[in-house]
């Protein structure tokens, strides 16, 4: 097991190195440079001023040289300075990561619990009324744009009913746990609803397939109760493909909650990475994307380890 984990860590480091090169190069290929927008809005930005600023930000150097400098600094723990936030990259990343963790973990738990419960219920009577209703809900969740869902949530629960705040992370002078929780309810619900539909479909399909397997039939023949058959004999086996999908989604969610974060003014990793790419903030975009890569690799490693727990026949060592 230890050797397996060490091997995976080595693989991850190689992936990160390659990814850093590819991402840096791709961002560098995008048109314009970070100072273009500033020039357009700044009456005093003479060519001389712009040349000085380019030198200060290192933009006057060739792309590969900039990458090399970044890489050497990153290996020493310095991930550079974010131009669009005017702060060291890690100082920008920290609060964004914390915000994403709050939003993501809460919505992920809600989403997984909901999808497991509804997916199993739907799989018990495929084609029945309950299955059809749950499938309808799942498809609605998959189909409804997050942007629209978020807006509807705001209009109903903030504008009409005044139940929850429409945006932000806390009220002035408050910011306590309950205050933060209140501000998280709508974004968490939106993100959870958007993800639950897909998960329900995976759980349902996996459960239907597992419930048709011989060992389930044998368990029933041996007189095991339906609850035990479903939850013990079928569910654990059905989880293996579901875990893969959930693990992959976890990494994506980490950098992909952009719309939810934007609509509810909860700036997290998704928004930070998006702004960094648009603003040609190489250091921040690169660090953010690499962090998202690390999360994806880690969640896949955890998924691999979970396989062994779910089915001891799957050896990881």
């Amino acid at each position: 097991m230890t050797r397996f984990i060490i091997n995976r860590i080595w693989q991850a480091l190689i992936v990160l190195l390659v990814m850093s090169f590819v991402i840096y190069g791709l961002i560098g290929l995008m048109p314009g440079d970070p100072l273009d927008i500033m020039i357009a809005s700044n009456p005093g930005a003479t060519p001389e001023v712009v040349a000085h600023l380019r030198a200060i930000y290192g933009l006057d150097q060739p792309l590969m040289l900039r990458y090399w400098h970044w890489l050497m600094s990153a290996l020493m723990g310095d991930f550079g300075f974010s131009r669009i936030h005017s702060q060291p990259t890690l100082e920008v990343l920290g609060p964004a990561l914390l915000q994403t963790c709050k939003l993501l973990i809460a919505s992920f738990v809600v989403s997984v619990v909901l999808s497991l419960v509804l997916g199993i219920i739907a799989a018990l009577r495929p084609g029945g009324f309950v299955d059809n209703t749950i499938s309808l809900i799942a498809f609605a969740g998959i189909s409804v744009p997050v942007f629209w869902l978020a807006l509807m949530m705001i209009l109903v629960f903030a504008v009409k009913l005044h139940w929850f705040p429409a945006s932000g992370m806390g009220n002035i002078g408050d910011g306590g746990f309950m205050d933060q929780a209140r501000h998280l309810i709508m974004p968490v619900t939106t993100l959870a609803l958007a993800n639950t539909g897909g998960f329900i479909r995976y759980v349902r399909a996996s459960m239907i397939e597992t419930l048709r397997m011989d060992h389930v039939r044998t368990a029933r023949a041996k007189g095991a109760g339906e609850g035990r058959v479903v939850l013990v004999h079928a569910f654990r086996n059905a989880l293996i493909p579901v875990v893969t999908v959930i693990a992959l989604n976890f990494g994506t969610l980490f950098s992909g909650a952009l719309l939810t974060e934007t609509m509810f003014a909860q700036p997290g990793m998704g928004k930070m990475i998006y702004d960094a790419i648009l603003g040609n903030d190489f250091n921040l975009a690169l660090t953010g994307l690499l962090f998202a890569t690390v999360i994806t690799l880690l969640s896949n490693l955890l998924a691999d380890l979970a396989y062994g727990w779910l089915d001891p026949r799957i050896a990881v060592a």
Partner: protein
Amino acid sequence: MRLRAALAATTILAFAGVAGVAQAKDDLVIGVSQFPSSLNPNIDSEVVKLYINDFGIRPITAFDKDWKNSCLLCTQLPTLENGLAKLEDQPDGKAGMAVTIKLKPDLKWGDGIPVTTKDLMFTWKLGLDPASGFSNNHPWNRATRIDVVDEHTAVLHLSSVTVSYNEWDQLLPEHIEAPVVAKLANVGDYIKQTTFTRAPLTPGLYDGPYMITAYQSGSQIVMEPNPNWAGEKPGFKHIVIKTIENTSALQANLLSGDVDMVAGEGIGLTIDLALALRKQQPAKFDYEFKPSLTYEHIDIQSGNPILADVRVRRALLYAADRQTMVNRLFEGLQPVAATWVNPLDPNYTKDTATYPYDAAKAKALLAEAGWKPGGDGICRNDKGERLSIELTTTAGNRLRELQEQVLQSQWKAACIDTVIRNEPARTLFGETLKKRVYPGLAMYGWSSGVGESPRRTLGSSDIPTAANNYGGSNYIAFKDDVMDADITKAASELDPAKQKVIWAEMQKIYADQVPVLPLFFRAEPHIVPKWLKGYTPTGHGDFSPLWAENWKSG
């Protein structure tokens, strides 16, 4: 089950109760659609940063709501008439100026330290160093020498006679920033180490009526009254600037009461959303649509052989019914532009060609230029070439895309075919415009200051080229000797009457040669609560928060 239901209902009511409490009028929550990258007044030039800084960091002078220059940190605006500005000869014999600035004696930073000429000297010295990373060091490098008379009086010696001699920017707090600069191995690192970004809650950074007391990056900024402010007492205990980037969500926040007002300086709602809101909620807010200095226009590719003919350019303007477009799309609130100069600008002249809609005249001009309607309704020349022009703008900008469609339809009626090919903003501004690779027309907005010289957009010195690393903003590569001479003269002409004559000539050149198709001046929608008193939008780059101490809850 009943217990669970009761618990759920109680929880919801508890949430509703707390969330439903309206903001006390001690607080004013302002919604904006952007978050600033830095709060240092000299680093980067962002509208949202200027807006936020205006509550707490005052420039020495600013243009007021009537577009007149006025003192904010000084006691009296320097002018030739009052003797605080004088012409003088430089040591090299060239004409220069001596400008006396008298700082208000009761000015203090948020930590109680007085604002003095030490701050002026520090800011000037840092601004003189091009390596310090000031995004605009021009305000300071106009002065070659400063004589300090006393703690509150200094004489700035300018190296040339300049019309903007009495326009001066914000000061940096010497007692806070000088130690930062002293520790730097390289002054270029100042932009990374400035206290404005490293510790924006430092009270000593602020000399205005409010100072920043809480800062959540990307989300919100909270300001409280500066206890050492000696002017009009601020009307709110808190002013919160809340960033909600999606304008639909921003609108919903306004309706829900999570924000009290939306900033109108181009960082709030777009005009279409504001108009829709006014229709939906006419009585809930006060709406003001203030024409601004940002003018929407269409750049013309000077290398395009069709557009090289001034008759075609004029025909394009005659064939575009800009007034109807503004009436239909914006309820007539955005004034049609004749040139880049806003009618509110003191240097505006109405004695220029205006090209009101006249399809017949457009066709006649095209015919004169050799373009006759073909079988498909599109004009052709003697060689059989179609009069087809490509129009580009920022993809995804809903309003500009609508304007494009209106123009396409109007031009088609005048036998001009328009091919729309839009690009993402970063491509348009990052490559296409500055390298002038757009084949026909490019539509976008341009902002300038009150009385700002058109050097950046019409001066031949500012044509972006590979040689100047595409540093200028004259994207149309306009080159006219008279215009260049006027730009130079306007920069140093101190007589307002003569200044007006020079500006009139520049506007005439623009209107006659039509190097650009002017569309309209943007009107910025200010949506404020009815209980907010003393709010006065300006329409120019010195924003309304510069007078935020007058905002009261009434």
